[in-house]
């Protein structure tokens, strides 16, 4: 072999590794990953297409712009709760009390705002603080006494349900004023069309800009750029087109709810925190191998506290969003399938129940799947008994897919 005229990139000196360079290579790499059990978002996309086809053929209203806007309104509340669940699942823990927490938060909101008559921001703050406090309690029980989160949150579920009933008293429910900003935010406010188009373009543009910046910096230090420009352009292009089509379609009806916008903003923020900060790295490390994380100098106790506090606080926020959506704080808030829907959404979106794997996006994607099922079944006028059974089956399937993917990853050496 002759001497190569330029030095190979720092990360390309091992000849045993196949490097997927261009667009075709990227597709080949994706197929390889899926075959080895690294499913990513594939199950969600397949699921969504399936759900949309089935419900649309049964009742075409399902895909009408206004119904989809309704769906987004409904998705925001459970989505917030699910985002918190993602945090504790990444640690390999669970919070079964998020439903009760959301119900308690809505009760606190109703009592302080309507019954006592104090300003709304204060009521919101108190409810969020209650959430943060409960998270602190769970984390402390786990840190100090080694109490499994499964048990402590089960106890918390019952205790908070009791507190919710106590706060609401004999009347059972408190109506929130229809004319208030809070309720209008949950029922009416949508983004202006021009703003929604701007938001649709932003992710693709951001992806392109950050991608080019990253390629430039990698080239400067002699690292290769997998995929290169073509993959980057293709990805951002497809994303922008999809988002523009979706936004345009939704704008045919009511438009995009601000409440959903708030939820997406939270997801984006959480995604940044989980993937681009030291805290996020520590979260995945603790979920993957707690002892290894501890020996690397990570404060496992503090990471747990942060995750449980985030989870309960987001559950409280979700509860208040649900209350503003329904314009009431009732005894039924947060009961029934709220808990399992939130957990199912996170798992369906691709966050593992076994810890160490997951993403903030799984809350967004998962909750759309869950909400689409619930919305479709409601359109078909099915009773809630049937709805529970079907949602339960979907959760079971999601967990089975997660387990199988995990086994496959283990046998393909991908953890």
């Amino acid at each position, binding site marked *: 072999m002759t001497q190569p005229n330029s030095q190979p990139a*720092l*990360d390309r000196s*091992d000849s*045993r*590794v196949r490097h997927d360079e261009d667009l075709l290579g990227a597709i080949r790499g994706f197929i390889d990953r899926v075959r080895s059990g690294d499913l990513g978002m594939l199950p969600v996309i397949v699921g969504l297409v399936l759900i949309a086809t089935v419900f649309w053929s049964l009742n075409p209203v399902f895909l009408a712009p206004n119904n989809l806007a309704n769906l987004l309104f409904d998705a925001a509340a459970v989505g917030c709760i699910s985002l918190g669940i993602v945090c504790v699942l990444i640690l390999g823990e669970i919070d079964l009390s998020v439903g009760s927490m959301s119900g308690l938060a809505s009760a606190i909101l109703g009592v302080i705002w309507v019954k006592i008559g104090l300003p709304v921001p204060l009521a919101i703050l108190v409810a969020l603080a209650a959430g943060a406090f409960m998270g602190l309690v769970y984390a402390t029980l786990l840190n100090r006494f080694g109490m499994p989160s499964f048990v402590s949150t089960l106890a918390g579920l019952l205790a908070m349900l009791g507190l919710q009933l106590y706060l609401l008293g004999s009347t059972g429910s408190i109506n929130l004023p229809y004319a208030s900003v809070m309720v209008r935010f949950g029922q009416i406010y949508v983004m202006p069309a021009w703003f929604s188009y701007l938001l649709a373009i932003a992710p693709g543009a951001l992806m392109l800009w950050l991608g080019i910046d*990253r390629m430039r*910096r*990698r080239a400067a*230090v002699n*690292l290769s750029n997998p995929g290169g420009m073509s993959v980057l352009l293709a990805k951002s292009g497809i994303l922008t087109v999809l988002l523009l089509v979706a936004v345009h379609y939704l704008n045919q009806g009511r438009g995009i709810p601000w409440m959903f916008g708030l939820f997406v903003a939270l997801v984006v923020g959480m995604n940044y925190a989980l993937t*681009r*900060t*030291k*805290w996020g*790295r*520590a979260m*995945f*490390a603790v*979920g*993957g*191998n707690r*002892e*290894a*994380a*501890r*020996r*690397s*100098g*990570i*404060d496992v106790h503090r990471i747990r506290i942060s995750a449980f506090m985030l989870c309960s606080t987001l559950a409280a926020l979700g509860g208040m969003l649900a209350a503003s959506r329904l314009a009431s704080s009732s005894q039924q808030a947060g009961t029934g399938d709220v808990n399992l829907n939130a957990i199912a959404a996170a798992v369906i979106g691709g966050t593992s129940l076994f810890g*160490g*794997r997951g993403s903030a996006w799984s809350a967004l994607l998962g909750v759309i799947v869950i909400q689409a099922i619930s919305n479709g079944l409601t359109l078909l006028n099915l009773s809630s008994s049937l709805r529970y059974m079907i949602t339960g089956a979907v959760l079971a399937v999601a967990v089975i897919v997660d387990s199988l993917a995990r086994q496959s*990853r*283990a046998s393909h*050496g*991908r*953890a």
Partner: protein
Amino acid sequence: MAESQSSAQPILKLRGVSKQFGAVQALEDIELDVYPGEVVALVGDNGAGKSTLVKVLAGVHQPSSGMIEFMGKPVSMDSPGKAIELGIATVFQDLALCENLDVVANLFLGQELSPWALDEVQMEVQAWTLLRELSARIPSVREPIASLSGGQRQTVAIARSLLTNPRIIMLDEPTAALGVAQTAEVLNLIERVRDRDLGVILISHNMEDVRAVADRIVVLRLGRNNGVFTAADSNSDLIAAITGATENAVSRRQARKLEPAGDLT
């Protein structure tokens, strides 16, 4: 070599360190000195207290009594983070890697560059540079640890311990799971680390490896010091110190082997 060391200050000095687990006295009155540019081997039978001592020095366990001096100052290491901060890096026997994270994330775990906006590019460059310095053969630093072989994981674990620019590096059974070539590479690695003027504490059951690199061999037996040897000392002395008697399973076995050979001639 011994003369130059006595004049220099030890990096690490242990005096009377003891550790109890309930009724069990795992370590009793341990003394240990580690000088810069020196490989100290810690040997002993199963249950001699080697791993306990490593965990004490790594801040995983806290000693029940005794004094630890680092760079001439008494220190207490109440958490693994504290030990790393001081400059004591440890490669544990079970490697303590996160299988779900990639090589770069594992190398920098707990020491990430720019905590609020991780500098992935810079971390990857440093990872490649470090791995290349150790002439490590890692196919890709962006694959999860789960896809690496035992030897590659060992290399990653050693590289990680060097990342924080420690004064002392402790290796707990670094060659136990390795093949012939990888073992030689790890031993080379240890010598390269020593030549950087770091102190190295090597725990191993493999006398061959210990003799190949160690400047001093410290024997532990049932949680106590049981003599200090050099590579020049005879194997039977060393084994006698480890097992606690000249009459032991190893010597009996050797005698048995010699007898029939003697009969034949």
